[in-house]
């Protein structure tokens, strides 16, 4: 667990009476893409949202065990949840741009963090849009509404927006599920590029996507972590019968 960007230890959590994750211990290495796969309702998204404490907003949420980001507990009282979220960025299933211009969408995080110098903001804007491979497409219309972009562009804008806060870790919750194949291919390229700078934890439904992108893959089933390892190994020589059945498409 040492040197892990994200880690959980004996994590059990759920909502009210309903336990979603049971005794999950996972370690995510830095600057790698780690995919979380598993059938619907297995707790992938809930696990992802433990790392930036987004579950805390939902009614009846409880959590036992440890959730660590860079070795530090996310519930450390000296670590306000807002600054945790500057470190751990997140992109959602559906593109969710704000009702603002492209520029203001990207600069939303930096402005929250108190960045005010125009030169610095401009630099962040360009860098973030470039890292999301969106700069060339939008550089001439930065002040138009973000809603005028296509779905794929909106999703990459959301990545740029998450990157603008300068996070070390990016949580991607099925980011391509609402996109067409071409936009998906474009997005995957962007994600591969990003992994050179940040740790990526990717929830996906699509096993080909996991195989294409992820260095490591973790398989969850009914709230338990079944198996975790190098992607190639997990897909070609799964150690668990359950994993094999899932990756070969016998259920899911």
């Amino acid at each position, binding site marked *: 667990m040492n040197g892990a960007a994200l880690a959980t230890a004996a994590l059990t959590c759920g909502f009210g009476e309903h336990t979603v994750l049971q005794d999950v211990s996972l370690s995510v290495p830095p600057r790698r893409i780690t995919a979380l796969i598993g059938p619907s309702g297995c707790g992938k998204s809930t696990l992802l949202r433990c790392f930036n404490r987004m579950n805390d907003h939902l009614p009846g949420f409880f959590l036992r065990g440890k959730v660590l980001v860079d070795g530090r507990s996310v519930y450390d009282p000296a670590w306000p949840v807002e600054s945790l979220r500057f470190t751990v960025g997140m992109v959602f299933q559906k593109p*969710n741009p*704000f009702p603002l211009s492209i520029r203001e969408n990207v600069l*939303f*995080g930096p402005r929250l963090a108190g960045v005010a110098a125009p030169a610095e903001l401009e630099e962040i804007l360009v860098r973030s849009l470039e890292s999301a491979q969106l700069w060339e497409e939008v550089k001439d219309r930065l002040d138009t*509404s973000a809603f005028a972009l296509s779905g794929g562009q909106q999703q990459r804008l*959301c990545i740029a927006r998450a990157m603008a806060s300068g996070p070390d870790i990016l949580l991607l919750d099925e980011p391509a599920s609402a996109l067409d194949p071409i936009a998906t291919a474009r997005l995957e390229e962007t994600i591969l590029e990003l992994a050179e700078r940040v740790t990526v934890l990717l929830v996906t439904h699509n096993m080909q996507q996991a195989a294409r992108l992820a260095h490591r893959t973790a398989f969850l089933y009914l709230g338990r972590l079944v198996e975790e390892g190098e992607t190639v190994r997990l897909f070609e020589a799964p150690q668990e019968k359950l994993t094999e059945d899932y990756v070969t498409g016998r259920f899911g």
Partner: protein
Amino acid sequence: MRGVRRWIAEGTAQRWLAGAALLMALAMIVGLVGVVVSVSASFFWPRPLVELRLASGAVVLGEEWGREEDPGAANQSRLRLKTGNRDVAGLDFRWVREAEVTGRRIPADAWLLERREYGNFYGVPRSLEGPQGSLPADHPAFAQRLEAALAEARRLVAREEQLLRRASRLHEPVAELRLRLAAAHRQGKDTTGLEGQLAEASRREQEAAAPLVAELVVLRERAAAVELVMATADAQERRIPVAGVVRAVPVNRLSAGGKIALYLARWWEFLSGEPRESNTEGGIFPAIFGTALMVLLMTVAVVPLGVITAVYLNEYARDNAFTGAVRLALANLAGVPSIVFGAFGLAFFVYTVGGGVDRLFFSDTLPTPTFGTGGILWASLTLALLTVPVVVVATEEGLQAVPQAVRDGARALGATRWQTLRRVVLPYATPGILTGTILAVARGAGEVAPLMLTGVVKLAPALPLDGTPPFFHLERKFMHLGFHIYDVGFQSPNIEAAKPMVYATVLVLLLLVVALNLTAITLRSRLRRRLRSAAV
């Protein structure tokens, strides 16, 4: 039978029913607007002056305003004639049985005089009398000289008004000291100091006002010196001071261009002028201004109040018995008769809050109230209270329409709850808020009953916003188009003459509401366009 059942089952009947309902609603609206527009549009159009010779030998001159069945004689009709000349005949209108008319002509030399007092005068000019002597009406320069005299008279009147305003400003310190002195007397305080101040202020006022008074005397003499000698239809002569004439027109000789010019000039006077003759003549500008300012003040008060309430209910409060009760109360508040709000506004805003303000800040002048009496501020706040449910409901709908994904997106970027609300949720909900504002404006601009208790008056020439510091005089009473309609149409001494004014005022009120609404609608559609999601 089966045919009917099928007719219903296939929805044809319902479609016809829906269409008929729509048609009826449209017919009623078009009818209302049509009547208002046609009456008020034709009111300002110059009518020819008709001279009628009657069987009795009498001659009358006037505008024909209508023909109706004579209630006194079967199968006979009578004409409604506006004969003006109230100072001569005592009445503006008379009815003439058509059977009694023996001769009828349109005299080319008849003139219409619109006067500051006593309404219109219809007659034939004889001469213009002035310090330089008499100019007969058949002199070629008569029209030109009369126009010059009218222009000079307008200048004199404007100057007179200016002097009077200045004089009343000079009097203000004295009036205030008098009130304070009276209050001190009542409280049994020592008043020698105040009496000294009052004497000094009076002396200074007289000193400063002396040149004004001297000028006024000269002005009035000069104004009274120029007179128009007119002959009525029955050949009585009248001397009419030119200073009392607003407009003199040889109506029957007017060309089409002249008629259009007169028509436009009358509209302009109506929209921009002060009322005359207990509001039945002149303009309605103070009422337009009062209505617009009152609606704006109401909007300024109701939008923040409604939005904050909705934000609390929707974003912060949990769903429990309390918020349920609040929502129920809001829904019911929307159905409370507006006069009840007026009574509440009078008791709470005027007497309680206004009285409190007076005791705290204007105790010198008590018992003469400053804020403790109806005024535009209290009227606006009362209407804000009346319209708050509309804004709350619309804003809540707007807030509920903000996608959870967008809220989550902001929270995931490290925004606090307040930052999310302020920077993402509220902008997203702005169209909903504007919808509420539009509905509130539409409701508020049309209310009259609560205003009658909280600050509207028949005549308030001093606008609540003017050039004297502190510029906003929110304690002042104001005029309102809706009340104007009620007052002129149903309370005025000369209803027959004022009726078309009422239609024109209705038209202006409708246009004002439309204008206020269009502003908000344009704003909303612009925001909508910005918000229209291209998301999948």
